């Protein structure tokens, strides 16, 4: 999986539309819309897995792009645009969750789970999707960022506001819970 993540990261770097990003940084809304078209599926996928709820994920995706537009003037290319956008999306999900904590606690956690997780993804194992959605919040957030989207522990810890050691422990916990849930042998 690690090699896959590295390949994925390299591919992302070469895919960065620098001219479009520059135009958006300079206030070009049309360029920003192109960035939205390119990055929205991944940002929505990230929000969907972090929230486990389709409507919440849609709202978070919208809020994240609005926040990105407001902040894009300060984007200085010290990181990949996609990484920057990911951080905003994670921040949006966590902020929203803090604000709606009571609502989330009474909601059925799996109620928003996609019946068909992704139209372009063939047939991903629905039991895995359900098992991920059923994970405790902390474990799920780390698994999604590190285990699925390939963030480093340092990046994920910074985004989630936790210690790097906690991040590693949460990933281990998530993997153990998933393995038990799916009856897999976990080394």
């Amino acid at each position, binding site marked *: *999986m690690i090699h*896959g993540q590295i390949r*994925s990261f390299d591919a992302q770097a070469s895919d960065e539309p620098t001219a479009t990003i520059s135009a958006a940084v300079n206030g070009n*809304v049309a360029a920003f*819309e192109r960035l*939205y*078209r390119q990055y*929205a*599926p*991944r940002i*929505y*996928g990230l929000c969907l897995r972090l929230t486990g709820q*389709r409507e919440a*994920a*849609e709202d978070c*995706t*919208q*809020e*994240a*792009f*609005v*926040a*990105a*537009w*407001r*902040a*894009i*003037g*300060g984007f200085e290319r010290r990181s990949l645009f996609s990484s*920057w956008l990911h*951080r*905003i999306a994670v*921040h949006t999900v966590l*902020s929203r969750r803090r604000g709606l904590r009571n609502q989330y606690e009474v909601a059925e956690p799996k109620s928003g789970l*996609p019946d068909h*997780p*992704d*139209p*372009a*993804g*063939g047939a*991903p*194992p629905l039991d*895995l*999707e359900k098992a991920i959605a059923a994970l405790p919040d902390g474990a799920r957030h780390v698994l999604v960022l590190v*285990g*699925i989207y390939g963030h480093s522990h340092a990046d994920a*810890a910074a985004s989630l*506001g*936790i*210690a*790097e050691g906690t991040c590693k422990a949460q990933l281990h916990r998530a993997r153990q819970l*998933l*393995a*038990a849930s*799916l*009856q*897999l*042998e*976990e080394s």
Partner: protein
Amino acid sequence: MMERPHNSLDRLLDELPREATPQRNLWPGIAAAIGNKPRRSRSWFMAVASAAAAACLATLFTWAFLQRNSVPRVIQAATAQGAFDEPRDPKFVLARNSLEKTYTERLALLKPETRAKIQASLAEIRKAHEDIRQALIADPQSVALEQMLQSTWHDEFDLYESVVQATQPPLSRI
């Protein structure tokens, strides 16, 4: 536990799609929002950045000033700043409060003019902190602002530490 040898967890996670398509078109809502609310201007951003830079300079100045006063530097087994992952971490807050108490006590040991300069530096750091905090209230999603806010915490911590180290009582020096 039953094993499914060809379905390892890693492979299953690898196969998960990273992208998904929302059921509704999200762009019209985004376009409406960004059309009504202007993007943060570069000059505004630079103003806040300047405040943070001023705070850093203030810390640096204080450090240099104390160094020039040739108070012997000590080896102190203080907790490294990097050990704190997040300024709101209780460990950081506890350490900062303890250091602030010592700093306040030690400040009285310095010459009045030195004390005034250090207090001016601290005031500048706190002003920068407040400016950035206000900016964050207006733009809570800004990662850059949050990082700058955290840096002011560390600047304050560094200033306290500089004063405490420079005024370390001789008997406790190694």
